[in-house]
């Protein structure tokens, strides 16, 4: 049973994959079929997960609490208290459903207002956690602490104190890189000034420079993202040509 089932599962997966890939050729009836199948299944799964994964653990269980009854002594111990006030959330949430009514549609803004309110409050709270360390790490020293050599010498074969000393130093090459770092961040920052006109050579220049530097950044992102995308395609190929074929071999090749 299991092997056969597994093969069917793989096979159907392969067919579905090809069905969706068909849109690469043209938007055909085949694609349309699998698209709607996908949408339907996804919607169905959403409704399953709605209770199973979210409302039950997040809302129902916490509202009712939980207790275990000891089979021997038959004494019930509370594991988690029930927070009955969670019940109040149901009507609040249901107000959203008034959006389709003519007269009370404004009330749908109440749950939305609450959700947006929480999000907004958090912004104040997380700003520093996210940016503080990054502001600090942008304050890079740009003055070399030593001029013994231009770049950091290779210290693998030196005694420990020497290594420690070299590790602690800031060599000119690094200092220059740091300077470039600081200039880049300032230039890029200047590109995002909206409320006043960028007049004067310096501001205009840094604005343009900022845009170019941003493009370099985007290029780099593009480069490393491309890897991820291709790997997924490769993984699909391996799904079809390696896994499915292996399983098919096992099924029919007497394996």
């Amino acid at each position, binding site marked *: 049973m299991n092997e056969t089932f597994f093969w069917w599962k793989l096979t159907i*997966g392969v067919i579905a994959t090809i069905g969706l890939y068909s849109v690469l050729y043209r938007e055909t009836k085949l694609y349309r079929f699998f698209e*709607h199948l996908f949408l339907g299944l996804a919607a169905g799964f*959403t409704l*399953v997960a709605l209770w199973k994964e979210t409302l039950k653990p997040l809302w129902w269980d916490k509202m009712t609490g939980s207790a275990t009854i000891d089979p021997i002594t038959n004494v019930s111990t509370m594991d988690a208290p029930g927070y009955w006030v969670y*019940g109040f959330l149901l009507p609040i949430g249901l107000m959203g459903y008034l959006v389709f009514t003519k007269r009370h549609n404004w009330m749908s803004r109440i749950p939305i207002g*609450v959700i947006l309110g929480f999000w907004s409050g*958090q912004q104040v709270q997380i700003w520093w956690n996210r940016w503080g360390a990054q502001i600090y790490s942008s304050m890079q020293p740009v003055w070399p602490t030593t001029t013994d050599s231009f770049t950091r010498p290779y210290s693998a074969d030196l005694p420990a104190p020497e290594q420690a000393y070299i590790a602690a130093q800031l060599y000119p090459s690094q200092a220059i890189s740091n300077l470039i770092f600081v200039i880049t961040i300032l230039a890029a920052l200047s590109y995002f000034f909206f409320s006043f006109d960028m007049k004067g050579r310096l501001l205009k220049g840094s604005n343009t420079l900022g845009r170019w530097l941003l493009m370099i*950044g985007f290029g780099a992102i593009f480069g490393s993202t491309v890897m991820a995308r291709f790997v997924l395609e490769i993984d699909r190929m391996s799904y079809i040509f390696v896994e499915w074929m292996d399983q098919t071999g096992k099924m029919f090749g007497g394996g």
Partner: protein
Amino acid sequence: MIELIAQAAPEFNPFWGTEPSPEAIWKIFAAIAVGIVFMFLLMRVPTRSRRSIVMTFTFLSGAFYVVYYLWPEPINRGPNDAPSGFVDAGGFFLQDALPKVADIANVLTYLLLCLGIYSLTRIHLGRVVKKQKDWSFSVVLLIAMVAMIAVGYWDYILKEFNDPDKLLTKAENWGGVNYAYDMLFDGLIQQMDAAMFSMIAFFILSAAYRAFRIRSIEATVMMASAILLMVSLMGAVDYQWSEIIKGWTNDQPGNFLNNFNLSEVAGWVKNNLQIPSIRALEFGVGLGALAMGLRIWLGLERGGVSV
């Protein structure tokens, strides 16, 4: 160990929290009832005060996190500590309240979910009834949806309530429903996810061929850094290049030329050009979010999404 067990026992405020028991259910119904009454009261309010009502809800929810942030955080809190003084007590309260408050937004979001499914079903039922173009595909969609719901919940009930010894966690004990569910979910949904996702690779290729042209300085620098990164990701090329450099430097690790290894150069570009430029951009976005958050929280905007 004792201390840990003591901690494992839950703490709760006897007013909000109740022992799991039949009467708890009554309290819950009471809460729901109060909510519904409240809802009907809201339906009566005059048009002019609506905005302020919505704003109050928004403000109160935002205020919690702001206060949580500004209030001194109680440190080094032991499992059975009693607060020392008012500030500490406030800190304790906020700390305990946080997880519950964090739930509210999600519960509300998910309570709204059916609204989305309603819209989807509406559109496709309409198509079927009106026999519009492609109505047959809408039938496929609806059937798939119903099937998934039925199988999904059946499987869930079997696994959740009729399986005390967790036998169904192993495939060999499965029945037809469990197989059906696995087929629909693992066999179809998951694979279709992956298929759609992997399609991006093709689009990238064609986009690169079509759009990555040396038209302006911007386009050129973007292309150049993209290519540099891609080459540096090709381990073999990178390695061969470093071998060549080893040849020049006759394998002196200290030699300056070693900085021209592809991975070194790519790393340098990332660290000194990508990170700062993107970081500057992100600062802007972060500030934008902060500002937008403040405007929403304090209800300063009018029109658009705000009343």
